[in-house]
């Protein structure tokens, strides 16, 4: 098999194969991209192992991957904002631009959103990929391709902290110290949060949380949320102004609500079961607002500025590296829960 445009294609649940696909052509307003680094997300793994996430069901072969950076290889008609050779981070969702969600600045909620690696739209774990030029963000020379790929999950943290209203002096609880939780810790600190407390089941994840700036960590040892809440309040000296729940686990959602101050905000980032029990009366009478988040909107420029200025260092999150040819091995490692962020290099091997 040739591998000019080697691509990671998910044919159906548990059937991920490397195929050589034709190189696509950029249409008006689009660019052809030579892919460089693509990170693996839990959602990519989930489509592979389950064939669906909620109502998004895999019905036809789909390319995986959506956390990516690349080099501009060819310009489509009318593109003036990028040049061939530009190094870019790819914001993987292109909305319709015309509906009320798009026009009111909430394009992440667009019902016609075309998002990489969400069925039926192909992702970008390949050597070549075409995307709308205005969703490609030029990287300064000192920002690496790996950092460019990390802009995607970092944008999730920017959006979550925006929706939470994290500001100077806040006390923030981050539940779950996986990649998303860790990026929320970094972002909350960058926004001027005074104290951040992280929770997780796993002590080694909490060590990383501490390294990345968490002032306190609480290891969850009981299924009773109130036990965890007590430990959090002891560490912080009070309930938190804001909780960012990144695990999706039911006991953790309860913890987040109980551990947030009256008048505070709980943001639900982690996705678990469709139906979760929550102490709504407790939240209600204490005016604790519960807000969901979906991906991100207008966050890439901010995420890029954070990295370019050095305010946030995401490099420690990359723990494993594979070549595109080894994608299946990379996915196996992700499935086993190894490391934090697994990066796949899409360059063609030089002979």
């Amino acid at each position: 098999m040739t591998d000019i445009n080697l691509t990671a294609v998910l044919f159906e649940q548990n059937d991920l194969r490397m195929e050589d696909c034709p190189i696509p052509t950029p249409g008006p307003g689009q660019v052809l991209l030579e892919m460089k680094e693509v990170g693996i997300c839990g959602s990519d793994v989930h489509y592979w192992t389950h064939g669906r996430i909620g109502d998004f069901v895999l019905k036809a072969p789909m390319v995986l991957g959506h956390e990516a950076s690349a080099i501009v290889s060819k310009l489509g008609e009318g593109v003036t904002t990028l040049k061939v050779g530009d190094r870019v981070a790819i914001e993987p969702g292109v909305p319709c631009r015309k509906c009320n969600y798009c026009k009111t600045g909430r394009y992440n909620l667009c019902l016609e959103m075309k998002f990489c690696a969400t069925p039926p739209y192909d992702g970008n774990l390949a050597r070549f990929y075409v995307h709308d030029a205005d969703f490609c963000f030029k990287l300064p020379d000192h920002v690496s391709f790996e950092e460019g790929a990390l802009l995607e999950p970092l944008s999730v943290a920017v959006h979550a902290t925006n929706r939470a209203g994290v500001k100077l002096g806040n006390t923030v609880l981050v539940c779950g110290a996986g990649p998303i939780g860790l990026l929320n810790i970094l972002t909350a600190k960058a926004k001027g949060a005074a104290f951040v407390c992280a929770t997780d089941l796993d002590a080694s994840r909490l060590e990383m949380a501490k390294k990345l700036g968490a002032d306190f960590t609480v290891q969850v040892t009981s299924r009773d949320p109130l036990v965890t809440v007590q430990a959090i309040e002891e560490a912080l000296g009070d309930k938190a102004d804001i909780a960012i729940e990144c695990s999706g686990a039911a006991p953790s959602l309860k913890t987040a609500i109980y551990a947030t101050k009256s008048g505070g905000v709980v943001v639900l980032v982690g996705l678990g079961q469709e139906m979760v029990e929550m102490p709504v009366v407790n939240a209600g009478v204490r005016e604790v607002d519960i807000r969901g988040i979906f991906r991100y909107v207008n966050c890439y420029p901010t995420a890029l500025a954070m990295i370019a200025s050095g305010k946030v260092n995401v490099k420690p999150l990359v723990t494993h590296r594979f070549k595109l040819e080894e994608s299946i091995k990379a996915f196996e490692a992700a499935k086993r829960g190894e490391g934090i962020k697994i990066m796949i290099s899409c360059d063609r091997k030089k002979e």
Partner: protein
Amino acid sequence: MTDNNLTLVLHGKMDLRLEEKPVLEPGNGEVQLSMRQVGICGSDVNIWVHGEHGGYIVDSPLALGHEGSAVIRKLGPGVTTLKVGDRVAVEPATPCRMCAFCKGGRYNLCPHVKGLAMPGCDGHLTRTFVMAADFCHKVPDNVSDGEAAMAEPMAVSVQATNRGGVKMGDTILICGAGPIGLLCMLTSKARGVHAVCITDIDERRLAFARELGADHTINVRGKSPQDVAAEVEELLGDKPNVTLECSGAQPSITTAVYATRSGGVVVLVGMGATTNEIPTAEASFRELDIRGTFRYVNCFQPALKLMSSGLVNVKPLMTHEFRLEDALQAFETARKGEGIKILINCHKETQGR
């Protein structure tokens, strides 16, 4: 001359002509419109009389008209949100949809926005016109063609009251009782404000404002800004927390700052001179926010709903109607300052409303 696509075209200062223009075909995402009612705006009169507006000079023929309603005549490729025969209000500006302003929900600030009836972009005082489908808003059945044409200036008032944060229980000052000032008053009332005081130098306009529901009016001719501010406070029982300055006149802008409650907002809606004086110490010490407002963003649908629900009745403002064939006479009438809103019926078959 045939008049299959009769169009009102401005050729230069004081040079307005009715002429035949080619009928254009709708491209991707566009619709072809059979124009119905088109209102005349002060900016149309201004660009006719001066040959320029807001720094833009008319150096090639420009079709006027940007406050319009229409019926869909033909769909371009890819249009699924509208059908032939749909009645629409036309939002007269297309932004780029790609820049940070557009994506951030403020497409009115897009640097590449094309505004109808501004040099470089023809308006729709014509019989047949082509427009982006998503900037054509469906008109509820109980809203007439003329009212739908009023959606554009109503959108200005929705935007201005949004920018002012006008809400239930507020006390409002509106400077200037022209069409925009009156619509700002109607929209403020629809938002549940406690009371509105409106100022002008023209007694007839103030009388009309009272008919439309102004709680208080002040004729400011010959009065100093501080005196007017004191009179406003006396009439309303308090300083207003939001002032919508709709005249663009310097003394009125000064008045707005003196009259507004500490911590309140002054919205500069009216456009007069490019530079004005503002009492900055007054504004600063009393934490007055002074905000501009530019056209509208996501305001057409709220405007149409306000009219459809009866919360706002714009019919009294629609004082004159002319046929497109008599557009020159319509513009003369507007220039003389007669009436409030003059509508031009661009549809060949219909006469009158």
